[in-house]
């Protein structure tokens, strides 16, 4: 396996994680690149649990990126925009997202960073609880409790956005779409 092949094998997973952690396509692209630069700086061929390690580097790069003051400010501006009207999103992301992405973003974007990391690893990358514990270096119990908190907050988010949709009079129109989006196997 060479570096190009490692890049091709993991680039999609790394980019997705960055995308949902940062909620911004251009930032995600920058950090995704930074992740691989960082990986290649190390002797990755000798890493025992490569996928776990790559996710660990990814999450850390995202956290570092968010910590940087300037970017955080820009990000806060974006979040303010989002909170004014949740249906409206930054122009740079709204044009490129599929409906399935928008739904996921709606659930994840308001989670605190630590919870968003857990939810992204679990629901986007399908990592097991022990893998997430390894990646974030926290006990499995902590992962479980963070996931519970995630679910609570995401439930709240759905409820409040439903209420908002209903208030805006669009509920009936969107409900039929919703039925198509979530096919029910048992009636």
């Amino acid at each position: 396996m060479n570096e190009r092949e490692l890049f091709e094998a993991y680039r999609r997973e790394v980019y997705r994680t960055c995308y949902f952690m940062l909620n911004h396509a251009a930032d995600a692209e920058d950090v995704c690149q930074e992740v691989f630069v960082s990986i290649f700086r190390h002797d990755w061929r000798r890493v025992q649990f490569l996928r776990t390690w790559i996710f660990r580097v990814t999450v850390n790069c995202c956290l570092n990126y968010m910590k940087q003051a300037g970017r955080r400010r820009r990000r806060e501006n974006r979040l303010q925009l989002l909170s004014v009207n949740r249906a409206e999103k930054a122009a740079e992301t709204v044009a490129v997202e599929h409906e399935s992405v928008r739904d996921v973003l709606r659930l994840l974007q308001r989670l605190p960073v630590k919870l968003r990391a857990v939810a992204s690893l679990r629901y986007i990358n399908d990592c097991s609880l022990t893998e997430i514990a390894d990646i974030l270096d926290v006990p499995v119990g902590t992962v479980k409790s963070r996931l519970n908190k995630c679910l609570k907050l995401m439930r709240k988010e759905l409820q409040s956005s439903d209420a908002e949709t209903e208030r805006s009079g669009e509920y009936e129109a969107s409900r039929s779409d919703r039925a198509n989006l979530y096919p029910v196997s048992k009636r």
Partner: protein
Amino acid sequence: MKQVDRIERIFTRFRNDDAPLNEPDFDAMWERIEQHRSHSAGMASGHPAAASARRRVSRTAVLATAAVLLTVTPAFAALSDKWVYWTYHSGVRSALEQGLGQQIGKTVSVGDAKLTVDTAVVDDNRTVLLFRLDLPDADPASYPRFAEMKLSDGKGNAIEGNVTFRWNPDDQIWQGEFSADWTPDSLRADVRLSAEKLQIFTAAQRDISIDAEDNRKQTIEIGQDGIDRLVVLPFAQGDKTLLSTSVFFSDKEAQSWSYPSIGVYDGAAQVKEAATGVFGKPGAEGEYTGLQYFRTTDLRGAAVHYKLNYTRKSGEIDGSWSVDLQLDKERMLDGTLTRPIDQTVETAAGPVEFQDMIITPTQIRITGTHEKYKELSFKHFYLEVNGTKLIEGYPSQEAGDYYGFTLRFERQPGLVLSEQTPIALVMKYEVTERHDNNPIHLADIGSGKKTITTQLGGYSVHWTYYKENGNLYIESGSDDPRFGGVNQTYMLDGKQRRPGKPVTANFAGDGNNRAIDRYPHFTGTEADLYIYYYSTDDPDKELRIDLPAPDRQS
């Protein structure tokens, strides 16, 4: 519907979506990563890369055949010669050799720091700007970086690019390259190159004292370059010693560029680490942590001493540099032509249709289509242009396009194309994906390693399995190099597939057929194992396609 079900469905629908995200141009990203690595390697050696032997080859031939060279002025030829030996794109070098660069020659200064944009190379799908950074007392052992450098188009849209620097020892200046996968919509376009805050970084070391045989926390006060203190905790692990480190920063910004690690030196020689370390994970207090492994015997020499190695910011100019430019790609486009290929070839991954060959002054691109979701079964590609081999050519795909692919080959300086020039695409090393639905029975699973051998498509495949820390590990592999490897295994839980977690990264055509999957929380003593697919390799398989030659000089 319950909210939890809705949440689950939202994520399931995302995961089942074929291409939910519009992904970035990963090929361009790879190119930037490679440039970064090349640059890092150059920095480490402290010398610029040697001049390419090819750079002066066939200059006469180019002069004789490329009509466009008639427009080259001696002044420009002298200027472009400064750049040819270091730009990372051989295609850009090629365009400069042909006199197709656009001379800019604009300088802007902030204090004593002068930024001069010398040349632009703009073709049908990328823009490269070559510039100089003239600093007083510039140090080749350092590395400059603008906190931000970007192009803005006439509407103020920012165009991000990749920036690399290399030291020119002759002129004692830094030469830079700004490269963006963007090209103006029109033949001419007004743009602005702007750069903010110039930072200079240098490698730094600090002697530290560690007792690697004392399994207690050791705190070393650093108090310099934004690093507050280093905490080391040594562990004896068999014949290895693990140094677990935590670096606390007084300047949080320094944490992003410091990359601290412990260097062990035996006299003047640095001791090689026994295994790959892990760096950068934030600790409980946000500190920078690291794990480094050394052979214990290596740490016992009389001359062994320790240093903290890191990068420090040695200078900063908090200013803005901005240059207005008019980019012109007319001459470059004059030298660009597209020729239809229209050839279909049969491969192990089904029919592949080659559509067009686009020849620009900087690169040759070949476009084609394959079956939906399939990858090309060949893994190595190169172009043969009249005996010159152009390598690279990794297939790339546009986001959301499941059929199309593009092979890109950078042109080389001195490469002459004429009506008669034979061009052939050569594809090598074919990998065939194969399926086998028969389960592999693993019996008597325990902590001891057991190995069984099964047959897959006529190949003997060894399966070694064992339990460790509640995980079941299953290793597969074959002594026959023509067996490509098992991509991933799964077990059945009722009708539900329970996939193993790949521990190794398995790639088609890498010549390594060993793979390891991990099943966490495995409690049984027997299991039936299935495989998604396996592959067979044919390293010698070669497919050559003669491509139509361009019908005019380019």
